[in-house]
């Protein structure tokens, strides 16, 4: 559990770390659009290439990046397996009833798996390189237009930042309670699924109680400091668009254009 680093901020100083969080958010959206626009391997190759560049500039160890994928390996394998078995292709390699393995199925599955992997890596890069505070500031700033229709953007951003802030705290807490129960002989590693789920009760009950206790304490502390979440709040750190952001913006724009061009001019299916 101590190694649950998926999505946790990785504190080094890099080009990517210094980018404006709003831009990183927009870039991520653009990237996801690009991944889904790409209809062949050329397009995905371009996406992957850009990602490799980002990782290189973000100074995040490659093992860390791959670990993000590890979390969804099951999902990727599962969807790939389903697609291999049920995709209706023309070049059939093997067939049992409605299940068939075809060349097109294999290619399509590989395509889909790659797409998912890129998606996960790119989104985890955002959280690796952006502090939760910067991220919420970015979200709040991007959602500003919603304030016109009286949507509580600030409250939403606050909820988000508190949730993000408490992930490591609750992970620590889980670890502590787990150790305490292990010291009392609790066994979380053996037995069938049902037994293991039952074994979680001694962790979940104290964890839930502690989460509520923390929430209450936090609420009290905020009220004691007269927090009302009014619109007149100023920001300690103002977000600013710099030269780095311009470069990143251009890269993003080029990526989408590139993928769209490839969709039009290289219409080879996969």
């Amino acid at each position, binding site marked *: 559990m101590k190694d649950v680093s998926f999505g946790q901020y990785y504190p080094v100083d890099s080009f990517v770390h210094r980018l404006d969080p709003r831009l990183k958010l927009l870039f991520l959206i653009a990237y996801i659009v690009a991944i889904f626009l790409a209809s062949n391997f050329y397009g995905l190759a371009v996406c992957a290439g850009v990602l490799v560049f980002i990782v290189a500039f973000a100074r995040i160890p490659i093992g860390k990046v791959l670990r993000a994928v590890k979390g969804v390996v099951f999902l990727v394998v599962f969807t790939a397996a389903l697609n291999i078995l049920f995709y209706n292709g023309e070049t059939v390699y093997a067939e049992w009833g409605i299940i068939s393995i075809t060349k097109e199925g294999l290619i399509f599955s590989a395509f889909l798996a790659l797409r998912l992997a890129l998606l996960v890596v790119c989104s985890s890069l955002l959280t690796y390189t952006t502090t939760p505070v910067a991220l919420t500031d970015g979200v709040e700033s991007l959602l500003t237009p919603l304030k016109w229709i009286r949507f509580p953007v600030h409250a939403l951003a606050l909820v988000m930042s508190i949730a993000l802030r408490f992930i490591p705290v609750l992970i620590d807490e889980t670890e502590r309670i787990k150790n305490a*129960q292990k010291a009392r002989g609790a066994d979380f590693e053996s037995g069938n699924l049902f037994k293991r789920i039952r074994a979680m009760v*001694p962790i979940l009950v104290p964890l839930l109680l502690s989460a509520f206790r923390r929430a209450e304490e936090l609420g009290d502390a905020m009220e004691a400091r007269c927090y009302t979440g009014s619109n007149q709040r100023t920001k300690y750190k103002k977000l600013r668009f710099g030269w780095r952001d311009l470069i990143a913006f251009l890269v993003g724009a080029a990526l989408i254009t590139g993928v769209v061009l490839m969709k039009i001019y290289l219409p080879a299916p996969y």
Partner: protein
Amino acid sequence: MRIVAEHLSYVYNPKSPFETAALKDVSLTIEEGEFFGIIGHTGSGKSTFVQHLNGLIRLPSSLRRYKKKKPKKGEIPPPETVLRVGEFDLTDKKTDFRALRKSVGMVFQYPEYQLFAETVRDDVAFGLKNFSAEKLSDEQIDAAVRAALEVVGLDYGEMKDKSPFDLSGGQKRRVAIAGVIVTRPEVLVLDEPAAGLDPLGKKEVMELLHKLHREWCKTVVVVSHDMDEISENCTKAAVFSEGSVRYVLPPKELFRHADELTALGLDVPLTAKLCTALAKRGVEIDCDFTTEDFIGKVLAYWAAHGGRKGDNA
């Protein structure tokens, strides 16, 4: 059970920006029957050390492999890490950690936050059921739970069917301690057992620990940063600072190093402070730093010097 640690090191999050060395080449022996204190402030490695004692923190695999690897010629082999608790060798992968945890009870900081069951009886019985090889009868469980609750000073009949969440803070902590000692461990390790209690509560907890030391567990290890707690209660104490052990002495001798302890950022007991202040004024009090002994010696000194009050010390 004798606890022996030699050249024990531990690093959290190795090879990452979060890397921190929690223990650096720690060697420490705790004899059977001791009421052992472990002192140090936050981040000194004391909690990391005690979590080794029942295998909650395991030695990193590279360390465990040292044993098999033969050093090349001319190369000085790294000092062999030793960690033994009684007959359990914790450097061995095949150690029966279940049996180890049964004989080394561990009470964490704020143990009341690990209560979970619907009734006090079920919560205290949790460890008992986990550790016993065969299914226990209700009578056996009742008897063990009753004994554990009574030794921590709670009434079994009144408590057993209550929800642990309806109790007061002090009662919750007692129930939590009962839930650990119910299996009658030979070594009892407690991490800041008196944290967050008022002075009377602290005193009661320490009295409880003495009672446990006399009647239930041969060895008691207490982690604390309250020097008065250590000086009043322990037979021996180790001082941790920045991951290494600085002193292992009985409190009587330890607190003679008042200046060195202060330099390490640690407090000394009130009695030691008073001794230092008195010594500056030429009054040498030679005491073992418990309040009782200190007062006795001061009164004796006063009587011997004709009740002279002139030094307004």
